[in-house]
């Protein structure tokens, strides 16, 4: 169909999304941006965050982390290290991950040097994104 964007979300374990969509918004490292059909070719790295796409008026939310997005000739490919559609997110696991990350961050702040601050922060961001996308937090 005309004026649709061919979206593919690929992770190392599976093809998460392969669909014709109207609009797709992704969290680029330089800021989020939306892509519609006939967008100029773009290549951007991905931040940890939420991407969502509209298809016939329905919005689908996906939690993504790490990777990049490529758009060319009406094809949009999101290569992420992890990507989960909102319904597929394991909320319990994300909650546990959040607690763990918060604890580690606390410990790091209180002066423990063996904890990698950046990693703890990234883990927390991933957990929070998952929870947000799953609709568990505003």
């Amino acid at each position, binding site marked *: 169909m005309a004026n649709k964007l061919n979206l593919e979300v690929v992770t190392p374990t599976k093809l998460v999304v392969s669909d014709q969509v109207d609009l797709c918004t992704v969290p680029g490292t330089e800021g989020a*941006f939306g892509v519609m059909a006939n967008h100029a070719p773009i290549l951007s790295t991905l931040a940890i965050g939420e991407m969502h796409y509209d298809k016939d008026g329905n919005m689908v939310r996906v939690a993504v982390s790490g990777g990049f997005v490529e758009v060319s000739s009406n094809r949009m490919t999101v290569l992420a290290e992890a990507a989960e559609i909102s319904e597929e997110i394991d909320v319990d696991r994300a909650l546990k991950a959040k607690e763990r990350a918060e604890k580690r961050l606390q410990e790091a702040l209180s002066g423990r040097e063996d904890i990698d601050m950046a990693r703890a922060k990234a883990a927390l961001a991933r957990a929070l994104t998952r929870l947000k996308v799953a609709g568990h937090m505003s």
Partner: protein
Amino acid sequence: MASLKDIQLKITGIKKTEQITKAMNMVAAAKFRGSQERMEEFRPYAGKFSGVMGQLAVTANPNAFPLMEEREVKKSMILVVTSDRGLCGAFNANIINAAEQFLRDKRSEGKEVAVGCIGKKGYQYFNRQDVEMVFDITDCMARIEMVDARTAGKECINLFLDGKVDEVHLLYGRFVNVVTQKPTFKKLIPISATDLSEGEVEEEESGPKATYIYEPAPEEILSILMPMFVNVQIMAAMLETACSEQAARMTAMDNASRACADMIQELTLAYNKARQASITAELMDIVGGAEALKG
């Protein structure tokens, strides 16, 4: 000659072995399907990744990246991917032999060597050898996770960037088909520009064509993607090795089952012969006795 009872015991024993090898064959076949699926699921990701890397390598000046720096090789490292478990024929032995050959070659060129291991079999072997082991990841081949590939990738990259090793080669069991698995080398670091541009570039379709907008700059994207590219390659190697392992085990167990069947057949033959011989001997005794009684 072995007695009837000895032969019978042997036959029962071999029948039990056959049961086990048959079961292992079936288990390996089921696991093989699983790992083959995972390998195929990973392929689009890896293909897309190298495609984009290739595109970027053309645009950006690849010589500006530390991970691409070709320097004089004083110390060479090999990352050996084997399976965790045995009983899969000569699969692991083949990989280890290839690794040994590699080490010999490098040593004869007067270079230092180091080994990194993914998979228990390689670790068990190299742990006993007189060679420096920089890191090992074991018990990871049953359920392959990106985390392990990432850990290995990080180790390799750090070793390279710290100047502790000057090149990293990857050795894994390439899956050719169900009966053939081939130990294969791949140069991991430094990443060579020619390798990158060889990556499949997707064919263009309709839609606006123009030079890419890069966000951030191409050089920056490349420097982020390069370590990931190393991980992706390690991951691909692990998946392929796991698949090869199961295929090798299938073949090995099939051979073992067949050998068992052959042995059972031979032993049954021997058993029947022995039984017949004893019957004949008994008959001769009876006939001889009867003749003697006749007087």
